[in-house]
């Protein structure tokens, strides 16, 4: 299409589980549901020790504006309310539920009645939905921009550019109808003209399946699949908006400022399902993979399941895990213990044994920068990580600001490509701190 592309890097795909039809995890003995699964104020538990709970029952909520309610993923009895260190290092309240295996569904679960935009937004909040692509931003806020009348385009982020992860890919193959339901609902209630599904070219079967579904609904002139290159990071919000619409969005801006509503494909599909069934967000499709896992697969798990139990459902560990990631290897977080529970925005758990794969995954000490410039040509925003790192060493806030470090989205492309194994993305993050500090003075 003659359009310019942003810089990106070729990252090995390792999509080992793309052909594995999704399985459903047996209900574990206990689940541990965090009260802080969204950006914003945490929820307060609405249940106490000894209470009986059912699937879909509201167990946590708050009056804070930026928040989303939390529902039980199982039926059983509340064993305790405890605090546990979360992956960010802070402490979260968790509701621990002993399951009874019956999975009785709460009486509150019924399809929402939506007759107006207000009903729609209320329903979205009640569903507990947050951005499932990783950001965990409450969806009902995102779908209610101040300038709704200026928004014309919906972009569904269906680029799964992180290596290993195939849960969105499976979703597009198995639940294309829910995706289209969700898109139609959003386009109807926010009154958007065009919908785009950004999918990478390495998923031809998903593209075909979506196109079939679009054609079957007669929506071909409203909704289009936009085929992206299969490079990293196509799924980053700002990259996606540029690639699909050619609009440059700066750090700190919202898609709505550019007339765009942008949401992850899993988020959209859940919304489509919820409007039909009224079943709140209590399960997630996740990819379980990595060299330490016996049977890598895609599996639907109850939110709150301990990661160790999820791995157990995938045949357990075949080698001692050395590093476990929530999310993909490029932007995912390393967790300190597999006792951590699954949260709403998990799309993958990857466990690495560092045997045979150590060269790529057990990241060695950095060596001297050879000034090769690879980091510069990798950055989608043409930042200069090598110069930023030098300015950071000198704690030169003015230079860092001039180098536009604040535009960095921490995609990790620069660190990935650096032959000296320098943690450039991490340095950028700390450099942002230096700039912020200087500005606040």
């Amino acid at each position, binding site marked *: 299409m003659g359009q310019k592309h942003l810089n990106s890097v070729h990252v090995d795909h390792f999509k080992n589980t793309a052909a594995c039809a999704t399985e459903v995890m047996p209900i574990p003995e206990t689940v541990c549901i965090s009260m802080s699964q969204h950006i914003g104020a945490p929820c307060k538990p609405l249940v106490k020790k000894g209470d009986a709970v059912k699937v879909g029952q509201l167990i946590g909520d708050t009056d804070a504006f930026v928040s989303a309610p939390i529902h039980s993923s199982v039926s059983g009895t509340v064993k305790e309310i405890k605090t546990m260190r979360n992956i960010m290092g802070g402490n979260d309240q968790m509701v621990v539920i002993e399951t009874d295996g019956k999975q009785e569904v709460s009486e509150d679960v019924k399809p929402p009645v939506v007759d107006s935009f207000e009903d729609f937004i209320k329903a979205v909040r009640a569903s507990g939905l947050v951005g499932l692509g990783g950001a965990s931003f409450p969806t009902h806020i995102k779908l209610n921009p101040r300038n709704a009348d200026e928004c014309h385009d919906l972009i569904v982020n269906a680029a799964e550019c992180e290596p290993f992860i195939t849960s969105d890919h499976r979703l597009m193959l198995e639940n294309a109808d829910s995706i289209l339901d969700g898109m139609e609902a959003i386009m109807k209630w926010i009154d958007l003209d065009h919908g785009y599904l950004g999918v990478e070219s390495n998923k031809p079967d998903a593209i075909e399946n979506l196109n079939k579904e679009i054609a079957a609904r007669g929506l071909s002139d409203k909704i289009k699949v936009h085929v992206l290159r299969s490079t990293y990071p196509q799924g980053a919000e700002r990259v996606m908006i540029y690639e699909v619409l050619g609009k440059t969005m700066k750090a700190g801006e919202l898609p709505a400022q550019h007339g765009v509503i942008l949401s992850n494909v899993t988020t959209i599909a859940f919304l489509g399902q919820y409007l039909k069934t009224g079943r709140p967000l209590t399960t997630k499709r996740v990819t379980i993979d990595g060299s330490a896992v016996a049977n890598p697969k895609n599996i639907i798990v109850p939110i709150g399941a301990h990661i160790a139990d999820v791995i157990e459902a995938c045949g357990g560990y075949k080698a001692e895990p050395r*590093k476990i990631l929530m999310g993909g290897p490029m932007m*995912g977080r390393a*967790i300190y*213990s597999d006792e951590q529970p699954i949260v709403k925005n998990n799309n993958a758990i990857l466990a690495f044994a560092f045997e045979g794969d150590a060269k790529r995954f*057990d990241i060695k000490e950095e060596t001297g*920068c050879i000034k090769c410039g690879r980091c510069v040509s990798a950055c989608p925003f043409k930042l*200069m990580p090598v110069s930023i790192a030098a300015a950071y060493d000198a704690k030169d806030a003015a230079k860092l600001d001039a180098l536009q470090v604040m535009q960095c989205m921490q995609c990790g492309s620069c660190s990935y*490509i650096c*032959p000296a194994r320098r943690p450039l993305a991490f340095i950028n993050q700390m450099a942002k701190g230096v700039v912020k500090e200087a500005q606040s003075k």
Partner: protein
Amino acid sequence: MANKYHSNLVVSASPHMVSPTDTTKIMGTVMLALVPALAVGVYQFGIRALVLTVVCMVACVGFEYLFNMIMKREQTVGDLSAALTGLLIALNCPSSLPLNIAIVGCFCAIIVVKQLFGGIGQNVVNPAVTARIFMFIAFATEMTTWPLSRISHVTEAVNPDGITGATALGQLGHGDGTLASVEYSNLDLFLGNCGGCIGEISAIALLIGGLFLIWKKIISPIIPATFIATVFVLGLIWGGIDGALFHIFAGGVMLGAFFCATDYVTSPTLPMGKVIFGIGCGVITMIIRIFGSYPEGVSFAILLMNILTPFIDNFCEKRAFPLPKPAKGGDK
């Protein structure tokens, strides 16, 4: 329950995966790309060329190893950068160079130019190029005694002792300054049937290696292209198409353009800087060749541009504008 969970996992900042290309692989690939040039050198000058090459590589690695050991620094010889420097030094010398002089050159490259400045990535100038210039000035006779190559057109009448040949640029300098005083044809220079340093004689072998590096995305084509194009254009002005071809095939232009001027550490990072650097190298090379008192100017050109690199980088960095401009049809 206590040991049901794994709680001793490695926690580090993302990304958790790196590309398969590390410094060692880059250096190794560059060495591989120099094999054709080395092979021609050994074929033309005999086993002595190979001996010199091995000695230089061992000396460079040895010096770096000892330096790191004595200074209690982390050992870096595994990155193959020292081995590559040794290889480049040897390829930039006549095959008859006494081994002790070569070892002094290696000392200069590794200890003085590289390690004293802080090791890999910290040097201001290219170690191999600087070592060559140092030896060239300090041991002028040995560095300009050119052994005869296997296939050479230099007849006994011209060269009665039959031991030393001459480089094409040397003949140019000693003659009347026109191509008529050069005995090699451009084809000889292209193939490597001529006198000169071990690694610089065959333009075709260097081209093969250089294009391999570009194909493997180890080097950007910008510096070699602008360097060679500049020499070509100035050669064209100097002596027409024959003159242009002569200047790009003779001497160290190919070796310098593909393998020395592209050294990441001592050349600019941004594309615009690479263009300035390549043109600068070409212009200085030709000024020295045509007006200077030395027959060859590639090493001096690269050295000078190395020194200017931080300024070029700075100049370009200020002009680079991060963030893409909106594509057509974008922001209205």
